[in-house]
């Protein structure tokens, strides 16, 4: 999956949790889930669980701590997918 495809996947997963559809349409690597998409921090857990299900990965607590914006989320998904490939 390339970065555009990953951003599209993150957009789809974040969609039900954001009230700001304009910000969602402009999603890019710099987008912050809380400050830009106005996603409630309790719903960030849902996004993380949805990403785990979609990509078949496990997001540990250290990784979760950085998952506040699209860029770090992409990096974590890529790293976890690579880990799965090595298994």
């Amino acid at each position, binding site marked *: 999956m390339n970065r555009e495809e990953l951003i599209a996947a993150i957009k789809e997963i974040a969609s039900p949790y954001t009230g700001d559809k304009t910000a969602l349409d402009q999603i890019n690597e710099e987008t912050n889930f809380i400050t830009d998409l106005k996603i409630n921090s*309790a*719903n*960030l857990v*849902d996004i993380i*669980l949805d990403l*785990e299900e979609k990509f078949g990965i496990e997001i540990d*607590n250290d990784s979760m*701590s950085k998952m*506040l914006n699209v860029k770090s989320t992409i990096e974590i998904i890529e790293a976890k997918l690579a880990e799965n490939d090595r298994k």
Partner: protein
Amino acid sequence: MIGNDVVDLRKAGLESNWKRKGYLAKICTPEEQQMILEASNPTVVLWLIWTMKEAACKIIQRKTGIRNYVPLHFHCEDLPCYNEHLKQGSPMLTGKLSYFGDDSLFREDFHIKSEINASLIHSIAVSNISHFEELHLQYLRPAINYREEFNNLSKLYLLASTPSGLPELVHQITGQKHAVSVSHHGDYLAIVYSDSLLLTD
């Protein structure tokens, strides 16, 4: 420093399914999960613990300038006053919470005051229990111009925002920056500020 967090229980009920598999384990320690699952109203206890963590998290964020998503670094060790709240129907509770850094040698303790009613849970965190004195809580409608509304009501203080989006409260006469925290969820917006505590305290 102070931090606060509000949960609109109606909105949380609509938007958060905390019973989904894996949810609790991502945000609550095993001890907290047990407290939640054994409570007579698990949903209320979950959001109580959550607001406590988020309120303390805002203090850590102010101190470090970094917002990390680490709910498991905040440990709510017991909720002694919650049972009292149930018995006496008192809407105000006090509790304690600890934050553990990446190496668990770093520990910071917080005192928490929480309000629970049928529609919301609101928690305030401070580092020192004396900081609860001279603290004010103002609920406002969550409109875009809430700062304007606050400033009209307050007269003494000017509420603004730092470039990074954190609230800033300036005393109109002394020019000093006072400790302040703002939280918004659903139909509620809560502003907590102190007459005596400064932003850097």
